């Protein structure tokens, strides 16, 4: 049932409820790249217990809300990441872990890893660290939750709107483009 509510205040309430629900059930795509994936087990297990924030794993991209890019991305991995990201359903969020996703980190001069993640997929929150500790990871999630509650986290839509720009960047380094185009 798709009803639109004309009343401005009512829309606000609906948005609030929607965002509240979204932020408290973040299903994280269980896909680890780079070294940061090792920080996920302590974050999820009893010591830090991320599940109390509604953060839990998801088995497939189509069930997931959050894509964690846990560290450096080789060009080869980037292909898979793009594919995973495009399979995820809106609303979808990306968290960049560590220096590598911001400006290359210690792999800045590598011939095979990208430097700035937001050139290829939109990123919601960056967590600084090399690697970030579980507290920092939780802080990152909390920041993402705040962003969702504010209603700013609509990068999935942004990606579709600016698809051409992203595709250009992606195709610049992925020369042999054999990826399916999704019909959102």
């Amino acid at each position, binding site marked *: 049932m798709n009803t639109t509510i004309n009343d401005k205040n009512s829309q606000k309430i609906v948005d609030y409820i929607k965002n509240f629900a979204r932020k408290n059930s973040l299903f994280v795509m269980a896909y680890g790249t780079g070294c940061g994936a090792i920080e996920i087990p302590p974050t999820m297990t*009893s*010591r*830090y*217990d991320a599940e*109390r924030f509604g953060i839990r794993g998801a088995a497939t991209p189509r069930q997931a809300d959050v894509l964690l890019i846990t560290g450096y991305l080789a060009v080869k991995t980037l292909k898979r990441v793009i594919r995973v990201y495009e399979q995820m359903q809106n609303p979808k969020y990306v968290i960049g872990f560590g*220096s590598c996703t*911001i*400006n*290359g*980190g*210690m792999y*800045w*001069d590598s011939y095979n890893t990208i430097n*700035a993640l*937001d050139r290829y997929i939109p*990123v*919601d*929150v*960056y*967590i*600084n*660290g*090399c690697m*970030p*500790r579980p*507290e*920092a990871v*939780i*802080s*990152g999630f*909390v*920041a993402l939750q705040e*962003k969702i509650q504010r209603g700013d986290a609509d990068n999935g839509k942004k990606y579709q709107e600016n698809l051409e720009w992203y595709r250009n960047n992606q195709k610049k380094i992925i020369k042999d483009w054999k990826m399916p185009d999704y019909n959102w």
Partner: protein
Amino acid sequence: MSFFDLKGLLQPLTGIRQFGNKPHTIKFPDQTKKTADRYRGLHYNDLDVCIGCGNCSTICQNAAIDMIQLDGIEGKPGDSGLRPRVDNGRCCWCALCVEVCPTGSLNLTKDYIFVSENPDDFLWIPGVKNPEGKNNLSFTSTTETSLSMYQRVPLRELDPHDRVKSFAEVILGYNEEEARLEAQRCISCGLCTEVCPDHMHIPEYINAIAQGNDDDALRIIYDNNPFPEMCGKVCTRRCESVCALTHRGKEFDPGRDEGAVAIRFLKRYATEAYPTAEKIKEIVNPEIKEANGYKVAIIGAGPGGLTAGYYLALQGYDVTIFEARAHAGGMTFYGIPKYRFPEDSVDKQVEYMEKVGVKFKYNTKVGKDIKFEDLHAKYNAIFMSVGFQKAWNLGIENENIPGAISAVDYLGKINAGESYDVGKKVAVIGGGNVAIDGARVSARYGADVTILYRRRIEDMPADWEEIEAAQHEGVNIITQAIPTRIIKGDNGKVKAIEYLKAEMVADDKGGRPRPVAIEGSETILEVDTVIGAIGQEGDYSFIPETFQKKIQIERGRILVNEDMQTGDSKVFAGGDSVNRRADAISAIADAYKAVKAIDKMLMNK
């Protein structure tokens, strides 16, 4: 297995015993895990301590650190005025930057949580972004753990008991192994070049020595200093006082710049590696331009005159140096004792200059043997570096009787090979290097030497190592002593010196404390000789009145513009008679500037 399994039913209930236990999970965000003692979190930089040497930026393997200009931070001697900015999108918290920070201003804190939606936020200026980080330091470097070497390679020198017996050179210098080791301590920041009056290329030649390429080191040194052996031995080395390594080197030797890279002795090593003038010519192999027909006269063969002569000769000028005395070198020959700067070193340098075409006219005093007007008429340009020849009077009673002499005259006599009998007991008045020289030379003639100085030892303008060496050689230093009169003996010679004790009074204007004589504290010291070394001044009597007016001499100094040009456009001047620093390297710097200006003036004609 029966349908009704009691154990299976009750087992989950055992969890109840955990009820009331403290949970294992940490609370967020109230409780964060305690970090390790030397945890490496975000950077903190103490902006006041930082000197902007850029060592952090150079060592960073991830090219994460930039040196940038910050508002409100100006460069000053020993501080480049730049401060590090860390790109946290590159940093991997290896803390190499902390390990090599020569001042210890850059540290890592315990803060490690930094989340942002904007990737540009991660450009982080430590100390500006987190001023509170000071109280939260975690990973700091100490001189023990640091990767920089703060301790200077010890210098070999003669034993004090042996050295007072002769004029043999006291400091033996570095051998090859020691020089390489010492050169490797340099972090090549270049802060030293700013305070060097001549702006020598210090990091470059030290790096060349460190890499084992002495030829290149010598070539780089000769680029703007043709008198490096002298500088290597007796330079006032302002460079070492601002060396980045002094900041923590002080821990090993408080109050001194011992931690600094031994720039002076490395330069000395580079020049001593080539013992003859031929060898220097072969290595430096300067490009000598074709003769351009212009003639330049230089008055005074001191460091300034020699420098101007050398570089003008390289530019193709016909250069003649007029020297009043029998030997080139000026005060570096006649004023500095041979145990600090041996005659061979001077001769080697002068011989090399003759090889590139500089002409010398010794025993030719301008004003007496040749007229200044003639020089002015015959030559296209004149460079004057006549220095300060005349000693200041002590201004006390009986100072001109036999047995009282100025240090300049005394050292000049000794260095020229003449003899002067100082007797058994000598008093030297003054606290500069010249006073110490006079004292140490007298000590070498077996005299019992006392230095009288108005202020305290730490106020002495002489180099600390000179003061220390003098003390090792048995020179007694009486501080806060103001000489009042020289007492004449029956034979008309000096018998004793009377001085007043002084107390230091803080200056209201914020200057250094002044000595004020204590009434009635007259003390008499019996001496045979009194050597006055309280300063020198110039003697410009060789310049005719008419020219003096044009050249403009004010308060004992020749006025020049920034090109070292005097009021007379043809006449340039440099050295002690122009600048207030009164050391050889400043004379060299002045001459180097004047050469450029003379070249510009004559070539644009």
